[in-house]
């Protein structure tokens, strides 16, 4: 609790709590209030990184390069969105990186082994992804254990299941090529095609990413469900006490992560025709990083969906910018770390400035 605050007690008729405006009270200027939005820091960081690479790497200035940066950002960003919502809701999902591959494997193997239209596999994968999310959520609300532990378990389980089942079913550790099967072309159009914008080939995931980001932001800030997300992450017990369906909210948040994993998994499948069962490990940290850079509090209850968009963009920009700049690749990871740390510091500085009283 941080002191008396900026409030004014003006006496009504029976005058409870009356008192003159005390000396400590000041209104925050509108500009500062804007800065206090969780995504402003990461927005400035993203702009800084973009400007930096526009200057440092001439190749970035071509339209096509930006399309590549946005493509990589989008595959991170589509997952970072539900991960951000979940984090605002006070939980983690460490299994989300391998869940992407689980989804792709399910669709690929089911269609191939049973020789079905790939759309059947796509829907089955959706059901499987949602089920994994629901299971994660159910275990978390049921046991009350930290989601970090629960999803660490599912992370390992999925990693093993991905490998073992793929090996069992296909005899290999990668799935078979599904590109000549019925419905593939259609599915590829939805999940992995590109379209032309002023002569530049932009991948469709970029479009989906923007649509999903707008949708997630709307849900978070403008709907009842969004209000609940903030509440269950901010103070679960208070939320329950005023009648927020905490369990429902948390389980559906985990299922949203499943939905994201399904989408990215489908993109992987229809973009590369086959799936390597060992992939995806480590990506969960990238998604979480994008959400945190995007202004989500690790402890929950605060953050933004649109912020994760800028977070993912920053990650993609740095990742590709270093290649475009032609820097010594041995240093790649180090550059990446420094840039990200810098971005987080800018973010932190902005937030401090904005909330300083």
């Amino acid at each position, binding site marked *: 609790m941080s002191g008396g605050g900026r409030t004014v*007690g003006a006496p009504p008729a*029976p005058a409870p*709590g009356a008192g003159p405006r005390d000396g400590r009270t000041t209104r925050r200027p509108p500009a500062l209030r804007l800065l206090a939005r969780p995504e402003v820091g990461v927005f400035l960081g993203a702009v800084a990184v973009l400007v930096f690479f526009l200057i440092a790497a001439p190749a970035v200035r071509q339209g096509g390069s930006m399309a590549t940066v946005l493509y990589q950002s989008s595959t991170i960003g589509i997952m970072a969105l539900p991960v951000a919502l979940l984090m605002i809701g006070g939980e983690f999902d460490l299994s989300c990186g391998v869940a992407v591959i689980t989804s792709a494997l399910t669709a690929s193997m089911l269609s191939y082994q049973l020789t079905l239209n790939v759309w059947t596999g796509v829907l089955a994968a959706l059901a499987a992804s949602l089920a994994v999310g629901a299971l994660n959520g159910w275990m978390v609300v049921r046991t009350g254990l930290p989601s970090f532990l629960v999803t660490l378990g599912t992370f390992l389980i999925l990693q093993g299941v991905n490998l073992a089942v793929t090996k069992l079913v296909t005899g290999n550790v990668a799935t078979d090529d599904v590109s000549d099967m019925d419905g593939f072309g259609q599915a590829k159009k939805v999940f992995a095609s590109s379209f032309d914008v002023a002569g530049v080939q932009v991948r469709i995931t970029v479009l989906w990413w923007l649509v999903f980001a707008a949708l997630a932001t709307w849900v978070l800030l*403008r709907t009842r469900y969004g209000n609940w997300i903030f509440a269950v992450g901010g103070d679960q017990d*208070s939320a*329950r006490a005023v*009648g927020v369906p905490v369990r429902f909210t948390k389980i559906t948040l985990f299922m949203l992560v499943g939905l994201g994993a399904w989408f990215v998994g489908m993109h992987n499948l229809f973009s590369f025709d086959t799936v390597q069962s060992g992939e995806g490990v480590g990506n969960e940290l990238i998604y979480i990083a994008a959400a945190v850079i995007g202004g989500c509090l690790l402890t929950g209850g605060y953050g933004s969906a649109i912020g994760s968009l800028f977070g993912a963009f920053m990650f993609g920009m740095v990742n590709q910018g270093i290649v475009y700049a032609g820097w010594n690749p041995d240093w790649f990871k180090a550059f990446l770390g420094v840039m990200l740390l810098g971005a987080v510091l800018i973010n932190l500085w902005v937030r401090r400035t904005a909330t300083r009283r």
Partner: protein
Amino acid sequence: MNHDGTGIPGVALPGAPAPKDTPLVELRRAGKSYGNVRALYGVDLVVRAGRVTCVLGDNGAGKSTLIKIISGLHRHTEGDFLVDGRPVRFGTPRDALDQGIAAVYQDLATVPLMPVWRNFFLGSELTRGRRPLRRLDIPRMKETADRELRRMGIVLDDLEQPVGTLSGGQRQCVAIARAVHFGARVLILDEPTAALGVKQSGVVLKYIAAARERGLGVVFITHNPHHAYMVGDHFSVLRLGTLELSAERCDTTLDQLTDHMAGGAELATLKHELSQVHGVDLDAVPEGLGDTFPEGTT
């Protein structure tokens, strides 16, 4: 008053039902055991419209268990729990809310990081439009929150500010105003003054009085007999999980209340012993010393 669907038919309005009518909430020989531990037993409690029922007791006396039963967080394991004369068993706080019973917890009152207006409507948000486009009616929510808060005498210049930046008293008041707005007939206040300074406590006590004037039944839980005596109509003192005293205001005095709070007979014996051993001036023994008195001194 706007009840937004959570209101209950027959809400007690100011000056409506006389205290003799069926109580809003009644506990008869109610109790609660957690496994082998009997946290509460044999408790009778009556809450009437337009009256403040104070529940007093030291830490561990069973106050929290009592409030959790009435507000639907826990189920009672013995005795009867009646609302409007009908026995009930609540499964969730939502059930209690639907019956017009709202609890305002000491620590659980609000979500600190959320703006005031979002907190005000949390769990009962106003919406407009149809699914899937149903969305929050933000202007109406802000306007209503501001109006209701003003009616309780809280004027905030920025409803977007997180509740966590308000003072403790103000946070309690936001929670109380919220409960009143959503058609609460029975308001349960869990230690609303415990963490507050003198001035802030005064603010909260005035709201309690205001709520009573509006015809609500108030359960005021506290361990401070002074605060209780300032607003209470009926006093129930809990001690070690059961009732030590249940008395109307006209039948008791602040001194008696303090005595019972402190352990009544035990305290009298203690005072007597002290006066013999050390010649302590009886009037100088602080109130509420009770069983927390250091053992080494006797």
